[in-house]
């Protein structure tokens, strides 16, 4: 009897001693949870059904599906040819969704679909030099199953923040994936001159020893005042950070997979140039670390409407009134998604998965500086004050002449801060070790979350939030942020808000059997992040560790090229996002 008593007492004491974070979660899987999952399954099944139905000779899927007809989205060329296209660089979130769906349902058929599609693509559509036939200017024509160029007959290779799902690609076809990751550098990075080109040639020979050269001195040197000198000698090969992000991500993945540290060293070298070019006072960072040299004649450059980079730095031309700070690298009101969202998500991923810990400090310097100088609440909305990275405000500036950044008499106004900023800020905080380094960023994050209508996440750490459980927000980034906060704190308030957001997403965006941006939007894009976000929520409800789930990194896929305008007459050069995915069911 005595022993039984002691046993009961010990059990009681142990039960109360277990830290909350290690305790088994007692989350009940509710009917509404199933409803959300069911919507995702319906979407996936419909994408697979209609996507495969169009051309049964291939497993490849179109980038987007017309939700009224089930037909693939088509690109209309200037000669009126309509081409349904499969651009697998623009389908990475769908592959992540398929794997995530298998993870939460336990049914492998979804992952098998992803494997089949990638397998066919990697086997048949890898150029002899190693580049895949995908990206900003190429895709597969789903009528002919030939490679389709959108930028003239021989469109270049271009990835901008597409961050492919390499884990799965390596599982599907290791040799092809490794070859691609190496060739991405050979085709885009000029080792002799350290120039980088967002465009890569399909003619560049494959180089198995691509990383064989000695890492050179830094491109960015400092002047006597400690400010970075931005070279203006690039021969039209601008090192945009959105391309560098993809190069670095590939190199880190390559090193991790092959245990060869050299590719990662090159990735660190490349990312360090952006860090060195950042403003030493504000911490704000750059979109590019070089300007182009002038190759056109003074007469050609006297024409403001010439906006290509042959006349040198395009901001120096159009914003010359501001003096030396006016450089393309220093603009902090355009391309900020690439600089402060996609790039930071990659830096944090590299820090987390590949041990590049100082990237967390860089990420914090960049985003904290940006928010400290430029974040403002206007009429209860999150906004950005337009400025250069040294803090020189450009708000209200009226551009005197036309240029690369817009028409004459354009007035610079506040820039909306989209919800995409939630994840890089939150992940930076969560990956920062010391509380004292988190406080400032947490303060901005708290204000931003509140202003987006999610309620108050409370003091540092978010252990005691006062959230708006009835929030009307229907946004996948807000959903993922709440899920990640729940995962960190185990406070169920975050889970409850995440469920509300998830329900809102289904109510507002699930129409005609597909997830669409809005009820009236015609196309359902495979790269949309909503389904992956919903499955991330489903995973935490089921107590599946987030580390076992495919991770959101970007949804930047696009096609850029020549097409026929909606008027049916004028030839245009534009993006799929502007021309195709803006169509409504009434167009």
């Amino acid at each position, binding site marked *: 009897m005595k022993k039984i008593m002691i046993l009961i007492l010990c059990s009681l004491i142990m039960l109360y001693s277990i830290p909350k974070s290690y305790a088994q979660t007692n989350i009940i899987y509710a009917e509404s949870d199933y409803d959300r999952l069911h919507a995702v399954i319906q979407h996936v099944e419909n994408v697979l059904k209609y996507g495969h139905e169009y051309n049964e000779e291939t497993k490849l899927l179109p980038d987007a599906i017309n939700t009224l007809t089930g037909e693939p989205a088509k690109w209309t060329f200037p000669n009126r040819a309509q081409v349904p296209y499969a651009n697998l660089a623009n389908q990475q979130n769908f592959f992540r969704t398929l794997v995530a769906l298998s993870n939460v349902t336990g049914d492998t058929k979804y992952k098998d679909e992803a494997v089949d599609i990638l397998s066919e693509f990697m086997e048949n559509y890898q150029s002899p030099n190693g580049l895949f036939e995908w990206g900003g200017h190429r895709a597969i024509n789903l009528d002919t199953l030939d490679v389709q160029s959108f930028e003239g007959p021989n469109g270049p290779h271009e990835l901008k923040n597409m961050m492919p799902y390499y884990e799965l690609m390596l599982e599907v076809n290791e040799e092809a994936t490794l070859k691609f990751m190496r060739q991405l550098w050979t085709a885009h990075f000029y080792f002799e001159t350290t120039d980088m080109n967002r465009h890569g040639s399909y003619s560049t020979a494959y180089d198995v020893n691509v990383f064989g050269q000695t890492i050179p001195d830094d491109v960015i040197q400092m002047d006597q005042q400690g400010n970075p000198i931005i070279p203006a000698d690039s021969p039209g090969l601008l090192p945009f950070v959105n391309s560098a992000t993809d190069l670095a991500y590939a190199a880190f993945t390559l090193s991790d997979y092959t245990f060869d540290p050299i590719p990662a060293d090159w990735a660190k070298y490349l990312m360090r140039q952006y860090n060195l070019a950042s403003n030493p006072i504000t911490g704000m960072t750059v979109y590019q670390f070089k300007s182009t040299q002038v190759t056109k004649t003074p007469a050609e450059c006297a024409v403001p409407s010439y906006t290509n980079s042959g006349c040198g730095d395009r901001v120096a031309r159009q914003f010359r009134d501001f*003096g030396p700070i006016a450089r393309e690298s220093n603009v902090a009101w355009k391309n900020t998604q690439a600089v402060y969202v996609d790039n930071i998500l990659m830096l944090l991923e590299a820090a987390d998965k590949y041990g590049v810990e100082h990237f967390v400090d860089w990420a914090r310097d960049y985003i904290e500086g940006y928010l400290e100088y430029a974040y403002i609440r206007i009429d209860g909305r999150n906004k950005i004050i337009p400025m250069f990275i040294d803090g020189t405000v450009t708000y209200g500036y009226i551009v005197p002449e036309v240029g690369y950044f817009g028409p004459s008499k354009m007035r610079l106004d506040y820039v909306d801060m989209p919800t995409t900023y939630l994840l890089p800020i939150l992940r930076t905080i969560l990956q920062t070790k010391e509380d004292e380094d988190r406080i400032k960023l947490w303060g901005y994050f708290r204000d931003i979350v509140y202003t987006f209508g999610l309620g108050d996440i409370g003091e540092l750490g978010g252990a005691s939030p006062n959230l708006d459980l009835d929030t009307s927000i229907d946004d996948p980034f807000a959903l993922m942020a709440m899920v990640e906060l729940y995962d960190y704190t185990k406070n169920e308030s975050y889970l409850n808000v995440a469920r509300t957001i998830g329900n809102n997403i289904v109510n507002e965006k699930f129409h005609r059997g597909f997830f669409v941006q809005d009820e009236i939007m015609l196309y359902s894009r495979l790269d949309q992040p909503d389904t992956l976000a919903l499955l991330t929520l489903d995973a935490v409800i089921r107590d599946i560790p987030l580390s076992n789930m495919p991770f959101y990194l970007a949804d930047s896929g696009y096609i850029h090229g020549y097409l026929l305008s909606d008027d049916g007459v004028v030839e245009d050069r534009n993006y799929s996002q502007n021309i195709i995915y803006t169509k409504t069911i009434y167009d």
Partner: protein
Amino acid sequence: MRKKILGLMIILLIGFILTACKNKPTDDQDDLDIIDQTYLLLMEAEDLSGMSQKTKTVITSDGNLNLPTSYKGVTIVYSSRNKDIISDEGIVTQPDTCWIESRDQQGIPKEDFVGLNDNWPVVVDVTLSYEGQTRTAKLLFVVAPAAGFTCNKYLG
């Protein structure tokens, strides 16, 4: 029998202790409620104190912006990024030059560009404090130069 009574007492005692421990978060919760209200008050102070009233129009005269320094107990402190034009106390002194002189690509002044960018944007950082909690905010004012200002400062 004694052993049984003793055992029962021990269980009751432990049960009491555990129940007492479990009740403690309620006290914490009261504190948290206060903290939550503090944050909402700090937000309210930014939105309703009237500090942003004059950010909607161009300020065309010298004088006091009358920036509120308190709101329902919240202390509000300002720090201007251009103290020559707006002081930390919210006193406006119109500058005697334009903000930006705009010229064409060849650096030649053009009639079209005169007056294009005369008005100065000035950011003021705000710190709001209440019972040990602080948060920051920003205000952006636009100030016109004083009458008779000059505009000969092309930087291009």
